[in-house]
């Protein structure tokens, strides 16, 4: 009998896979956490433009120690370096471009994502306060909303669900989801499993998913950057 070793995907592999979907020339906005790792993926022939909600357009990678400009940070408060062609906007103009659809894709983290494309990422169960930041504006403004999240909570509950139990960030906007177990498109049929982590079967993934999965006829192993 062949031994199938189950290998959940690491965060960088999840981020790389979503970044592989970025088209040449796209304006890309990355949320905090796993999404930020998308900027480590550099495609040989495609150039993307990174935009940050605090008014940065076309900024560069994270600053090395000693080269930080105290007044140049990304949305996560990390120091970044400037690039030739960079521009600065005030906050109202930055969100104007976000709402008006000039961002081609935003990659965000989430607590829950639903089969109808709703997602929740600003308030945890039982809390009075929440942290919305720019997520609601990005979710309704970006042409594409991708999510990167762990497939289950720490105590094993599904994060991919039929309907969100937590307060939603936006309604019906999510198109593509990468988890540590696979890649999922959201269509009229709900979640469609298109790529799967090594050693897992669709039944394994379904067992920890809170909504019915449609398995793509072209299902393949989760694509990695070679």
């Amino acid at each position, binding site marked *: 009998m062949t031994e199938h070793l189950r290998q959940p995907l690491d965060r960088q592999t999840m981020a790389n896979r979503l970044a592989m979907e970025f088209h040449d020339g796209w304006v890309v906005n990355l949320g905090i956490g796993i999404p930020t790792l998308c900027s480590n993926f550099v495609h040989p022939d495609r150039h993307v433009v990174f935009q*940050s*909600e*605090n008014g940065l357009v076309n900024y560069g990678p994270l600053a090395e120690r000693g080269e930080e400009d105290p007044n*140049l940070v990304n949305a996560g408060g990390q120091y970044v370096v400037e690039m030739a062609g960079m521009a600065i*906007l005030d906050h109202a103009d930055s969100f104007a471009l976000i709402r008006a659809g000039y961002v081609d894709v935003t990659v965000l983290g989430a607590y829950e994502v639903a089969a109808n494309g709703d997602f929740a990422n600003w308030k945890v169960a039982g809390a*009075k306060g929440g942290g919305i930041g720019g*997520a609601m*504006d990005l979710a*309704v403004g970006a042409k594409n909303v991708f999510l990167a999240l762990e497939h289950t909570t720490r105590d094993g509950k599904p994060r991919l669900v039929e309907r969100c139990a937590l307060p939603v960030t936006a309604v019906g906007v999510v198109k593509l989801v990468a988890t540590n177990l696979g890649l999922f498109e959201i269509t009229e049929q709900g979640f469609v499993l298109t790529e799967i982590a090594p050693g897992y079967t669709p039944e394994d993934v379904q067992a920890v998913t809170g909504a019915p999965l449609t398995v793509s006829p072209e299902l393949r192993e989760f694509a990695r950057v070679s």
Partner: protein
Amino acid sequence: MREKVYPDFAAAVADIPDGASIMLAGFAGPGTARNLIAALYRQGAKGLTLISNTPGRWQDDRVDSGLLVKEGRVAKVHAAFTASPHPSVPSPFTDLYEAGKIEAELMPQGTLAERIRAAGAGIAAFYTPTGVGTEMADGKETRVFGGREYVLETALHADYAFVRARRADRFGNLQYHRTQRNFGPVMARAAKVTIVEVDEPVVEEGDIDPDHVHTPGIFVDRIVAVPPDGIQEVPPER
């Protein structure tokens, strides 16, 4: 003409009364008028309403709105966060809020920016697609334009704005450096009295090229240059 350059931070905030509403520029550090916030803390005003991206962190002695919150001087905040932006980093606000000791209005960050922009642009209210179908639209008027639903949001005004910029001339024309700009330009227009701290010594009128002014001086009332021993922006230890 009225003198806008003030000798020190204490003089610039001396008249701020209890119960004032204050917009605080700044995002993740850059653009935060830390010296003015510290001066207001020493001045003693209380029952304040603060309008800012977050209710502050007051971490590692880095002065921000969290100092005023922690000291019980704030009655209400309007912000895009009523939980800590980073769950691992506690904020003084969170405990007070969960205990019901401070009021808050939470809203999306773009809605916050646009409500402030509207106040400084003579606009009473606007329709935004942000927040439709979420708790943020609860109790608010919605309307469909071109087949898409929008929610009505109103302008957000304030008595004062605290802004940090790189450079000012004596008329109050401002230049910001990089992401220091963030909420500065819109808050300077939305508040009745805008107070600015600048990194560099104040220059003469004409020293800033008119094409390179980010905030025109008509929106600026008081200017204080940050002295060498003031609170500077420096990269954190890592």
